[in-house]
């Protein structure tokens, strides 16, 4: 007997929320970034859960795409962090505010 | 749901215990044979005092490690420092779970034949890749937790190296997977059949070489042991480790070698097959024979590990990276393209043509890459002939 969909969705929602909170309260760019990954993962979980719930493979397929995009995003994001660090000696997002209007 | 306690609980537990112990014993044997073979290659004796032919030397070493003081330096990050060896060992141990080390044993009274494999999951090869890729954490965390410059450098090198070669590792087996049309290691081994000319190492010769090389790199063995290069980094990531923690690092490395060899045997060297010998022993004994064949093949391959260690010099770091990205990766990619293309195009004697095609294509690719590099080097040399560029890779990331 498989578990109801709701279990997974609730779990997914909680993980997502934790990711959001992390993004909001942490100042370290890398951790913020990790939190974003966390959110993506939470979404993935929901995808897979739906996939099984509906018996369709598409859900897993999208997880696959999400992962690919996440990988690309991490690569670029970390490269940006590295170069920001090189220039500013900090990755504190509060201090990196050159785009202040 | 009905649970057959014997078949679903007892026998798997037996298999697990068997394999784990086999691994641990294998490690000891490896330590011993490494030193003996080294001695033999270097025309010296090696350990021969403890036990017959020094066979008990590893046990003695183990006892020594156990009784040494469990020293934890002050400046380290303690939780991670302690955690790191385990993080290296555990993946090595659990990776073996999906390796089929023999055919099946059929015992009367049981509903199903006993498969000589802990778990035949349908994504076996992915599992292997996934688990082995985790090994790097042990190295990295250990290196960082040590709070030591040399360690950190070793850890950085190691992580960069492992990520780089992991790609080759993954890509090289795609050709194999195409032919077997399965991710299950058992199926892959079975598909290859009894005869060596059907085994994948001939059909995917370049991929085989690439995979093997990458496997060397993954296990941090010479000529890829940059992470612990004594002359440069003292002992790399485990500089700060001693006693049993060090021993665990040590064990993990050998365990990785064993698992890697087993995987190579499974993927490329026909697994437990050998000229039909494995089928000759009837329902029970054929399983045993197949296990023996697998065991011997793995042993031979482990010998190759040791052999290579004493044959090739260590790479320079930039050479290592160049080699991985510019030779192995293209070869692995070529293998995929050629295999896929020929699979569709050729209608008769597929395996033969794929084998030939792979080899020829890899040769061409390597020649092209080598030519381009030579041209690049020439122009660079012309530009600035004084730059020896040591440790360029590291410089690039600092």
């Amino acid at each position, binding site marked *: *007997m498989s*578990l109801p969909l*709701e279990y997974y969705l*609730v*779990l*997914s*929602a*909680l*993980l997502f*929320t*934790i990711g*959001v*909170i992390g993004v909001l309260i942490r*100042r*370290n760019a*890398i*951790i913020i970034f*990790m939190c974003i*990954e966390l959110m993506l993962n939470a979404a993935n979980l929901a995808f897979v*859960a739906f*996939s099984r*719930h*509906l*018996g*369709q493979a*598409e859900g*897993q*397929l999208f997880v*696959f*795409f999400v*992962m*690919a*995009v*996440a*990988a*690309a*995003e*991490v*690569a*670029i994001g*970390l*490269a940006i962090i590295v170069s920001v*660090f090189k220039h500013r000696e900090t990755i504190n997002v*509060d201090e990196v505010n050159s785009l202040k209007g | 749901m009905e649970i057959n306690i014997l078949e679903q609980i007892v026998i798997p537990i037996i298999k697990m215990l068997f394999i784990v112990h086999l691994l641990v014993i294998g490690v000891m044997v490896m330590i011993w044979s490494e030193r003996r073979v080294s001695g033999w290659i270097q025309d010296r004796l090696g350990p021969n005092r403890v036990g017959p032919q020094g066979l008990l030397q590893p046990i003695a070493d183990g006892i020594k490690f156990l009784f040494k003081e469990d020293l934890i330096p002050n400046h380290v*990050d303690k939780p*991670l420092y302690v955690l790191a060896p385990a993080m290296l060992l555990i993946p090595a141990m659990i990776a073996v779970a999906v390796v089929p080390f023999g055919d099946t044993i059929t015992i009367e009274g049981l509903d199903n034949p006993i498969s000589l494999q802990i778990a035949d999951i*349908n*994504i076996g090869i*992915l599992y292997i*890749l996934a688990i082995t*890729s*985790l090994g*790097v*954490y042990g190295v*990295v965390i250990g290196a960082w937790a040590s709070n030591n410059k040399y360690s950190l450098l070793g850890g950085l090198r190691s*992580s960069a190296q492992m*990520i780089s070669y*992991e790609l080759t590792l993954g890509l090289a087996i795609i050709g194999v997977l195409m032919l077997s049309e399965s991710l299950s290691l058992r199926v892959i081994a079975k598909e290859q059949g009894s005869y060596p000319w059907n085994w994948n190492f001939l059909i995917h010769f370049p991929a085989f070489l690439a995979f093997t090389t990458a496997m060397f790199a993954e296990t941090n063995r010479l000529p890829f042991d940059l992470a612990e290069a004594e002359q440069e980094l003292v002992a790399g990531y485990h500089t700060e480790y001693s006693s049993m923690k060090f021993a665990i690092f040590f064990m993990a490395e050998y365990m990785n070698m064993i698992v890697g060899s087993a995987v190579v045997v499974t993927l490329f060297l026909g697994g437990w097959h050998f000229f039909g010998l494995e089928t000759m022993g009837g329902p029970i004994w054929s399983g045993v024979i197949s296990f023996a064949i697998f065991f011997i093949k793995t042993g031979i391959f482990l010998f190759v590990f040791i052999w290579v260690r004493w044959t090739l010099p260590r790479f320079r770091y930039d050479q290592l990276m160049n080699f991985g990205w510019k030779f192995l990766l293209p070869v692995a990619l070529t293998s995929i393209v050629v295999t896929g293309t020929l699979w569709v195009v050729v209608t008769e004697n597929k395996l033969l043509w794929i084998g030939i095609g792979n080899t020829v294509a890899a040769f061409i690719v390597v020649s092209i890459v080598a030519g381009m590099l030579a041209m690049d080097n020439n122009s660079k040399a012309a530009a600035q002939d004084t730059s020896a560029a040591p440790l360029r890779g590291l410089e*690039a*990331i600092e």
Partner: protein
Amino acid sequence: MNPELIVFIIFGAVSIIGAIAVISFRHPIYSALSLIVTFFSQAGLFVLLGAHFVAAVQVIVYAGAIMVLFLFVIMLLNLGTLSAKGALTGKLKGVAIILGILLAVEGVYIAVRALNKTEVGSAEAADAAAALKDSPIDTYRIGELLFSDYLLPFEVTSLILLAALIGVIVLVKRDKQPEN
């Protein structure tokens, strides 16, 4: 008790604890390791959901590659904990947490109540899905879909990766030394 439920509770609890740990640890290394733990338990949940392939890929991609990169960068930049002086976050931490809780409540509400009203979450959909369950979602099916219906997204993905590759090279490329 349903063994699946037990496994779910274990993995779920681990992943939530891991996630909280990610945002709680001061040092990024610990955060990263916690995140790896979370990913692992998620992989476990995927196995529980019968998505073996996804689970394996999860480990390979997230644990094996992405997090290694994170660690690599953290170590490379030798990042410690950041100083506490913050312009915004200090003041708004409370607000953020309250918002997060609200968001969580809403998410749970969606999962538990609102979903039933939709087409996807309806009982009919579940029944229809049950009929499809005869053919399990294995790697073969995913591959088939990937190379037929979703070929274009697949190729686009590869382009994205290529773009990322080039982007990274450009970003971290060291400027040429002035020649002399």
